[in-house]
């Protein structure tokens, strides 16, 4: 599903954020990405979302070199990946329902079909009863679940998450991770950047460890 081939990323010509990354992620796999802050986790995800382009090497997603995408094709590429952000990136001027419906609105989905899928996604994260609420009325954990619902509402084949449990207590973090495992179980490729090592160790999935922009360990699920 994902292939990094000798990928390097420099900022401003000097600072090397990522160096010679070379790994593959199979379709339907669930992978954790760990490392200290500044190790390059976010840079790696930004490359995958094509917010940035690699300085060296190439990245293949579903067999396509994403660096070769014309900038007019990039939005359509992004629609195929669901992204969960550490700070949720919810829009505070609209209801939970409309936040989750946003990707479908962008794709021009038919409203009745959209409503069905939004409710299905909200049901999956256990927030169907809050669909009319505004994000500000929700707790941090609930906001993160709304972010997840928005990421999965158009059934992406690849789900990326950047520190999805960053600000949550252990119980809530475990709940969130269980959600990701559910999506993994139905065949979605999932990649989660996290520094919550204790939680990752409990979950037993493949783990890529980054340090100073290099891949220092690739541990298969035990």
């Amino acid at each position, binding site marked *: 599903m994902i292939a990094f081939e000798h990928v390097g990323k420099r900022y401003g010509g000097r600072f090397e954020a990522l160096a010679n990354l070379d790994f593959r992620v199979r379709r339907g796999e669930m992978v954790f990405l760990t490392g200290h802050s500044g190790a390059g986790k976010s840079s790696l995800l930004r490359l995958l*979302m094509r*917010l940035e382009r690699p300085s060296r090497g190439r990245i293949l997603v579903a067999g396509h070199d994403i660096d070769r995408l014309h900038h*007019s094709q990039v*939005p*359509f*590429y*992004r*629609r*195929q990946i669901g*992204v969960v*952000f550490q700070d949720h*990136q*919810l*829009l505070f*001027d609209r209801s939970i329902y409309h936040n989750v419906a*946003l*990707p479908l*609105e*962008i*794709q*021009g*989905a*038919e*409203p009745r*079909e959209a409503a069905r899928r939004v409710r299905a996604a909200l049901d999956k994260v256990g927030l169907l009863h809050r669909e009319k609420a505004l994000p500000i009325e929700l707790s941090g954990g609930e906001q993160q679940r709304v972010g997840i619902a*928005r990421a999965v509402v*158009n*059934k992406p084949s690849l789900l990326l998450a950047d520190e999805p449990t960053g600000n949550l207590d252990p119980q809530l973090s475990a709940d969130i991770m269980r959600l990701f495992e559910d999506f993994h179980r139905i065949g979605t490729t999932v990649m989660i950047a996290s520094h919550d090592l204790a939680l990752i160790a409990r979950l037993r999935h493949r783990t890529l460890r980054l340090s100073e922009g290099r891949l220092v360990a690739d541990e298969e699920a035990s």
Partner: protein
Amino acid sequence: MSRDTSTRRGARAQRPSSGGRWRGWLRHHRAMALDSARRLLRHSLSSLLTMLAIAIALVLPAGLWLTLDGARLLDAELDESATLTVYLQERVGDAEAGRIVEALAAHDGVADTRLITADEGMAEFQQALGLEDALARLPGNPLPASVVIRPDDPSPAAVKRLAGGLEDMAGVEEVRLDLAWLERLGQLAELGRRVGLGLAVLFGLGVLLVVGNTVRLAVENRRQEIEVVTLIGATHAFVRRPFLYSGAWYGLGGGALACLLLTLGGNWLATPIAALAASYGAGFTLPGLGFAGSAILLGCSTLLGWLGAWIAVSRHLAQIRPR
């Protein structure tokens, strides 16, 4: 296609059919048109001020254009009175003058002739100048008979050509044409047109700037929203759309206000203009915008608003990059 594949497509549902995409596109247009109108109404005072600024920028060139339109009507009326005066030789008697008038009337390009005999000319001269006493002291009538000719084609070039042709005729002493002031008026009208066009371009630019600045602020206010929708796969067209609609609404509102201002101003000025024109013996009235004029003004202002928004959003879209 088997039933099996269609259910699989339904399960993935990544790409809607082209008809569905077209309907979705229309739906988004409708939604954004309404949404941007609602946003404008929510801040009705500041929206109104923006529209008023646009209206003021539009009123000046539009008003000048209307004035020029009125002047053109006046111009046409003046062309009607473009005449040549043919002075006959002094020795020509009344009988011969009659024959010359007939010859003149038969000449190409002559629409109408009117003979002014030497005596009539003298009487007119005395009346016009009030110099009865001084002229009465003259030994004889020094004025020749003359013929006033109205040409078929009142344009200065044609009149000049006609005068050249008439000058060679027997019994004609001189052909006078007073084109200088007509030409001057034509040049003034041309000057007015150019000033009007220049002002229209300048103030059109003003409208672009007003809308551009307003939309720029709206883009800043919705920066986070733009970043988020870009992250989840919105195209530039999708991001631009609500702002383009608000620009168009601003333009339309400004255009409507401009129409209102022009109508009010026209009514306010109508009485003194009519009085002034009457004192010159002309029937000049300031023409109103009318249906076509209003439609053109509204169309132009809407287009300008849209364009201003497009420039502002495109400039800022390039700068906004998701974190």
